[in-house]
């Protein structure tokens, strides 16, 4: 069994890993709630990470780095706005282009500026966001001797960078803006029924641009966080798919701010578990029992469905059952209660699998904003 302090340490790193996800997820939330799909979150995150690290490295000031990162991210947002709002182009294609643009430009410019194979030099103390230690928090050396409450306070609540707390504050702020202000109501309306907003004499284009720019600011903060706080320099492709995980979290959260916090913390927890525990062992009977349960559940669901449902979901059920069978046969010698190692990649893939399940609508269907992905054309 793991002790309380280990649990706290895992939760602590969950929070740190969830922070960039949360900021990017909220960025996507504003954008998609206004009817603009944003596949380019990943690119904006990466661009902001590079620009903030580069500015922090050159000027030595993390604040200038943060501002520059936000600026870079807003620029890409405006490009996305130009393509998808003004020129009514395809939002998905624009997002794909932005991802490539960021992936390519960051390395080309980093190589030119610093000549270290697409990295920035390590940031010195003024160029990083340092952890904030709350008053009275114990240092990590004496953590083992402190009481549980003190451990909770010092390990989990204290000792994060300022941007972590900013990210947490952004959640109620986003909720307030989206649900309690006139701007938020209009923003949500423009993602559901832009024609109605237009009829009321409010600018659809203006609202959508402001949503996209808010998204840019949030992605910029997230980028600065991963390059100046989570790590202390920029490395090639350091966003590592976080923009897409945030997109998954957004769907998992059904486009709602508080749910987004929950989804991001959950996904952050998966990553923390994945980095902390290399081998996760489960008794074979638990694992195979769980798989057989899923398999039977799927099989009973498709019983009275179409031919296609039977083929696809039935095939899936069969596949899961075969995996369960393989597990059972592999431990046959040593007995059914022996431990089986769960592959690390399974934990890594869990966020995506959960998102697909939610998208499929088997558990808690996720319905996107109605006008999402379609450019608005004024009737003439």
């Amino acid at each position, binding site marked *: 069994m793991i002790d309380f302090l280990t649990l706290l340490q895992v939760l602590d790193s969950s929070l740190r890993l969830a922070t960039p996800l949360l900021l990017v997820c909220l960025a996507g939330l504003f954008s998609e709630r206004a009817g603009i799909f944003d596949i380019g979150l990943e690119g904006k995150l990466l661009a902001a990470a590079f620009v903030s690290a580069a500015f922090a490295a050159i000027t030595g000031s993390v604040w200038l780095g943060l501002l520059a990162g936000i600026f870079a991210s807003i620029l890409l947002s405006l490009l996305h706005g130009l393509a998808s709002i003004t020129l009514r182009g395809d939002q998905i294609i624009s997002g794909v282009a932005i991802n490539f643009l960021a992936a390519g*430009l960051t390395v080309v410019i980093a190589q*030119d500026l610093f000549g270290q194979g697409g990295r920035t030099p390590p940031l010195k103390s003024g160029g990083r966001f340092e952890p904030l230690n709350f008053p009275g928090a114990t240092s990590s050396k004496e953590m083992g001797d402190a009481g549980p409450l003190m451990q909770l306070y010092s390990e989990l609540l204290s000792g994060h960078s300022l941007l972590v707390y900013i990210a947490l504050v952004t959640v109620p702020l986003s909720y307030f803006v989206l649900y309690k202000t006139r701007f938020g109501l209009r923003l949500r309306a423009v993602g559901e029924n832009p024609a109605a907003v237009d009829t009321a004499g409010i600018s659809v284009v203006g609202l959508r641009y402001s949503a996209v720019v808010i998204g840019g600011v949030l992605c910029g903060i997230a980028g600065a966080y991963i390059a100046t706080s989570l790590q202390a320099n920029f490395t090639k492709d350091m966003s590592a798919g976080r923009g897409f995980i945030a997109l998954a979290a957004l769907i998992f959260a059904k486009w709602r701010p508080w749910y987004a916090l929950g989804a991001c913390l959950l996904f952050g927890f998966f990553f923390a578990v994945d980095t902390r525990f290399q081998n996760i062992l489960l008794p074979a009977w638990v694992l195979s029992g769980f798989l057989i349960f899923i398999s039977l559940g799927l099989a009973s669901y498709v019983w009275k469905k179409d031919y296609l449902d039977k083929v*696809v979901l039935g095939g*899936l059920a069969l596949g899961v059952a075969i995996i369960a069978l393989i597990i059972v046969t592999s431990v046959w010698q040593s007995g059914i209660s022996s431990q089986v190692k769960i592959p690390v*990649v399974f934990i890594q893939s869990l966020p995506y699998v959960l998102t697909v399940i939610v998208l499929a*609508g088997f558990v808690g269907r996720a319905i996107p904003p109605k006008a999402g992905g379609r450019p608005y054309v004024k009737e003439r």
Partner: protein
Amino acid sequence: MDVMPKWVDVIVVPLFSLFLAAFLSALLILAIGESPMAALKLMIEGTLFRSAGWGYMLYYTTNFIFTGLAVSVAFHAALFNIGGEGQAMIGGLGVALVCLFIPWPHWTLAIIGASIGAAIFGMIWAGLPAYLQAKRGSHIVITTIMFNFIAAGVLNFFLVDVLKPTGSMDPASANFPANTHLPTFQDLAGLIGFEKAFRSAPANVSFFIALFACVAVWYLIWRSSLGYEIRALGKSGPAARYAGVRPVKIIMITMMISGALCGMMAINTTQGESERLILNFTEGAGFIGIAVALMGRSHPLGVLLAALLFGFLYQGGAELALWTKIPRELIVVIQALVILFTGALSLMVRAPLERFFISMQRVNE
């Protein structure tokens, strides 16, 4: 209503987009202190002036033809298959299983078996998102993105825990048996007496399968009734449904064809080049397929030409990285600009051209 002549739409618009992308890239090369003309010269000399350069270029081209065709087929049904990367990874798994566990007597049979394995695995991996789109209404872009990441996990699991030979540290499968090795262009040139051509270049016979796939896709889309239904659904869902097209069926079939094409990319990289299954063998080709399809206007001939162009860019980019201080990622920037101008900003590129050519027509009348 005035319309542009068709040749402008098909030829001038993509070329103009390419010109814009090249112009911005030239500015970038200038900004990092190199000469764009020298860079272009180096790319052309390193790629087109020696047979090994051609061999590398056609190797990349083969990948891009497969993924480009895959994205095009899906585009015709108004579906955006962004999951080519994942479908290719799972296709590679299919190739590896077929090559490792079936004792093939000769490569001609092995390539057929591997193609079928790759296609079926890719098909399954595209079929699940297609099913979710067709029956559950989940957005195919999001599901295919998720399936890319899940595919990476599955491939990783198979390479680390299942296919890795005991005692090996490398996350890769065992080498494929010699009977499955595909003849490279070097071997083929040797047969007709040019032993020195295409030396050590990876291009192999799967290039011809890619060419055949172009013809097959052309026939499918423009000459078969299935292709007609695919295009009808892509142009207008309600109209197609009214005419008796079953959307669920067409979405499933289109995506499965698309997934099969992506999967078949792996015969080039896995069976043809590395001769074992490795991590990251796709190298982003699934995404480059999007640029290729957009540039090629979703037509097999256009895809072939765009794939040649991107093959040239990738081989040329490698030359640049070797001889100058321009990193390989410059190609990624060019690729992004091509996607931007041919896809997202197409209105910006088209509108002035449209105005110009329509006014030309008026003058002639």
